[in-house]
């Protein structure tokens, strides 16, 4: 009996932890990742800098919504968290390399 209630308690806590991870991945992390991709796109899109910045911003809101949906669609909260973090690190590195190579206006 004690083990049964113990494991159901553990399950409840695991579910809560999973949900918390998903919410963190969806809201603050999702915004952060889409912001970093907006920066990376602004650097990488061809053509005029102003145009690239505007175009990247226009796309960023779709990325933001996509990140929130992925945070709940992923198999686990942990998986949602690390995939999004990885995407953010990738965009951040691209931005950093691009800025250190050619600077800002």
């Amino acid at each position, binding site marked *: 009996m004690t083990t049964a209630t113990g494991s159901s308690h553990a399950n409840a806590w695991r579910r809560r932890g999973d949900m918390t991870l998903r919410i963190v991945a969806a809201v603050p992390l999702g915004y952060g990742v*889409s912001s970093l991709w907006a920066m990376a796109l*602004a650097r990488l899109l061809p053509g005029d800098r102003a145009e690239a910045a505007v175009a990247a911003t*226009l796309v960023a*809101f779709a990325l933001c919504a996509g990140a929130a949906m992925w945070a709940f669609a992923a198999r686990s909260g942990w998986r949602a968290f690390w995939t999004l973090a990885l995407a953010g690190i990738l965009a951040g590195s691209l931005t950093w390399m691009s800025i250190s190579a050619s600077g800002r206006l």
Partner: protein
Amino acid sequence: MSKSFRQSQSFLHTWSGLLLGWVLFVIFVAGTMAFWREGLNRWMRPEVARIEQPYTVLAGAQRFLQSKALDAKGWSIAMPNERVAGAQVYWQPQPKPGKDEGRRGRRGRRDNQALIGADGLPTIARETRGGDFFYRFHFDLHYMPVIWARWLVGVAALAMLVAILSGIVTHKKIFKDFFTLRRAKGQRSWLDGHNATAVLTLPFHLMITYTGLVTLMAMLMPWAVVANYADPDALYDQLFPRFEAQERTGMPMPLTDIGGVVRDAERRLDGPVGSINVAEPGDAAATITVTRAASTMLSSRTPSLTYRGTDGALLWQSPAPGGASVTAGAMIGLHAGRFADYGLRWLYFLCGIGGTLMVASGLVLWTVKRREKLPDPERPHFGFRLVEWLNIAVVGGFPLGIAAMFWANRLLPLALKGRADWEILALFIAWGLALVAASGLRATRAWVVLLGATGALLATIPVYNLWATPRGLVATAMQGDFVLAGIDCALVVVGAGFLATAWRVASYRPAPKRARKRPTAAAQATTPGLQVMEPAE
């Protein structure tokens, strides 16, 4: 789409929709009304006649400003046309020496404005914010710092985007559901109503939400600009080019006829003019900048021309914007709908009502769905009570506030000091009373009282207009002023809708609980679509 993906989005849909649902509701209501901003500006100033001859009014505006503020730093004239309530003119006095004038001039220009009526003479209208109130409220809300309000509105818009996209995923049989409206079937009907209002105007909802985010993009998502620019102002100078203002020479020179400049600008810009700005009038360095009206072009990035003030020679024209900039401008233009003629304007309005009903029915659905599962429906838990209370206070209360504001616009004494603020206060007082009603009455009774009062107040204003103002429905229809006539008709129709809803709620008798429970459970077992709708709790 796999079943698990659909279920995973259900939680997201429920909670992203609920948490900011009440904010979204007031944003949707105010935004829907703001499509008639100019019409409401006129409707709320019934003493101002419609402008028939724009150039006469423009000449009157120039005459007035020359006599009143010839040595001003600048004038601004809203180009008169038949849509606006008189030509609004502003002037900005010369800055006092030694005082910093701030970035874009000072805000307190309340004392430096006048309204030029249809006869070209300054006129006095009742003090009111008119339709502009709803336009500002849509993104600035009220009684709070603008920047907080815009963040709140921006976050709500992002939540809305997520709610719409996850909602599309959640509703498996989206188009089939759309054609099934089961009436008077409790939860199922609420769900059908929510689906119908959502799907019917789905392209509009997606468009309006995304473009709404774009209107706030500089605040919500500044990071792409940060990546490219050390000084963001450099970008804004490129995106919104302006003619470099010239120093005042101190040599007086008369200003040329603004009407002639505007006629030339309308030819060159290939469309009507929206606003006219004069810098350093009465001086040899005077310039006149004319901007095209947003009413006939999709993009909100309206081109402008600058003329020399003394002889009307063209000095400067704004460069053509780039592709991404035009895209952003077109998105903002789509959102505001300024380009829309009256037919399209009505479509915008109806879609806005559809969106309002979608948000409201979604909020109510949250409670309807959970009520039957409550352990003790007589004593629901705190979360349930809170949602139900907020639903009544906001969905029932805000429209009541608007109805009260319209009546205040008609009834407050014209000489009242701070009259425009009193109108707004009337909205919030009525809303506060709705809050009290939501707290003190049983839910059903509170709904009936609020919906009924709103309906009665809205539907009777046009009757009052008939005998107390020169712009009753008969007069406006005879004059062919179909905007004002349309507003009166819409008030009657919307008011009747509120009354009918109140009557439905009052006469609703839930089926005995035991008899209803079983078929619902059976239906759930046989229709997988319904199970999918359950939030993953």
